[in-house]
């Protein structure tokens, strides 16, 4: 049902954890749907220098969280904002159709964290 890459990122998720005093935090999803993803970013000169996540959800939710954080690490925030859920799913060699909403969650969580950062830096 899942690709080898999905299983790899589920079994060995990259960037799990929290960042104290993160520059941007994004949390999306809710327990009702069975998926919550929380992303922490450390940003220097608009570059994402560190990223961590925590996810409550199925294997696809955990794997997409892991992959999405890998994709944005080291990127400029403008570039990170262009990463789509399709790109996350493609990087995992695809997801079963019923699980595509999990990849949308990863995209949204990253966006929410960057927006949080932008808002904080405007304050």
């Amino acid at each position, binding site marked *: 049902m899942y690709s080898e890459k999905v*299983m790899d990122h*589920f*079994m060995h*998720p990259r960037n*799990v954890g*929290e960042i104290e005093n993160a520059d941007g935090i994004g*949390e999306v999803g809710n*327990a*009702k*749907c*069975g*998926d*919550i*993803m*929380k992303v922490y970013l450390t940003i220097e000169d608009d570059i994402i220098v560190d990223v961590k996540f*925590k*996810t*409550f*959800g*199925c*294997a*696809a*939710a*955990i794997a997409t969280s892991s992959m999405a954080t890998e994709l944005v690490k080291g990127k400029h925030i403008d570039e990170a904002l262009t990463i789509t859920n399709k790109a996350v799913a493609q990087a995992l060699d695809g997801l079963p159709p*019923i*699980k595509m909403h999990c990849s949308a969650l990863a995209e949204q969580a990253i966006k929410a964290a960057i927006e949080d950062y932008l808002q904080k830096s405007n304050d």
Partner: protein
Amino acid sequence: MSERFIYFDHAATTPVRPEVLEAMLPYFDKKYGNASSIYSIARESRAAVDEAREMVANAIGAKSDEIYFTSGGTEADNWAIKGIARGSADKGKHIITTSIEHHAVLHTCQYLEKEGFDVTYLPVDEKGLISPAQVEEAIREDTILISVMFANNEIGTIQPIEEIGEIAKRHGIVFHTDAVQAVGNIHIDVKKLGVDLLSMSAHKFYGPKGVGALYIRKGTKLASYIHGGAQERGKRASTENVPGIVGMGRAIEIATQNMDSYNKKLLELREMTIDKVLATIPYTRLNGDRDKRLPGNVNFSFEFIEGESLLLLLDMAGIGASSGSACTSGSLDPSHVLLAIGLPHGIAHGSLRLTFGKDNTREDVEYLLEVLPGIVERLRRMSPLYERVKNREE
């Protein structure tokens, strides 16, 4: 990937036992006769079907002409409910059932609702039980059928079937029970229970898939289900699945003989698992009633984690189990049974069902108890929900 594989999903299906397979095999290629024909190998098929019918009848305290073979439990449920609905439409259009039935009952009732039938879905308490009083209160002038499952497939709760049977009888209403999880696993006597219709399925008691039966008490007016032949006394046409029926007969006979000794062991495994898991894994609840429950059923909810992730990690550790999470149900909602007993969505997503069987050992359960706490903790450490609770505790 682990080398060992331990199967803890016997409520989903069971392996065909060797004696059953052996009994079935000749009916595929050597004794292949159509039971409706008249030559010798056909008569052998007929005799084998009759014998199996007798075995099924004996196992539940019925007469053999009250047993009708079907393609499985789902068909038996469909037939019982639609058959009464079609056969009694002149008497009324009201059906009483519960909110925790198997989809074979629930979806059939929903289908009938679209055809103008009125269905009452009785709520259950936090243990998953309905009370006989609830059933009695729901009865109306136009009630034609009460359908209450014997034992729940997810949380193992055993309903007060005998008491409901008395009520149904007193009001002259047909009583059906979906006993798919119960037959072959716990003692059942239809005479004592006062049920009119009872569904069963062979693959839940080490018989083959694709065969089941409906018990129809003599005198119960039920419309025919499949038209096109004289099989099953003209009520359910189609050439008999002779190997399957033979397998079901043999399986139920052996299951009945071994029931007490199996259940003693299953009960021990169940109690050991419940005690240890509740004691060693915090933020865990047992779903269903502790005592009124199938001997081999355990169902937990682990807060802050999701069931599919749990199942995959257990599979990696060589354990096959199931969950009521949305991701395993193929929909966006977790199991209707877990929601019906009042679990919030978030907790229902984190459920784990373990159903033990005759070949499971103490060692199997000890291995589970060894790996489960670590797997739950591993997922919790990844969960933002757990983080919140931990922060609050600190």
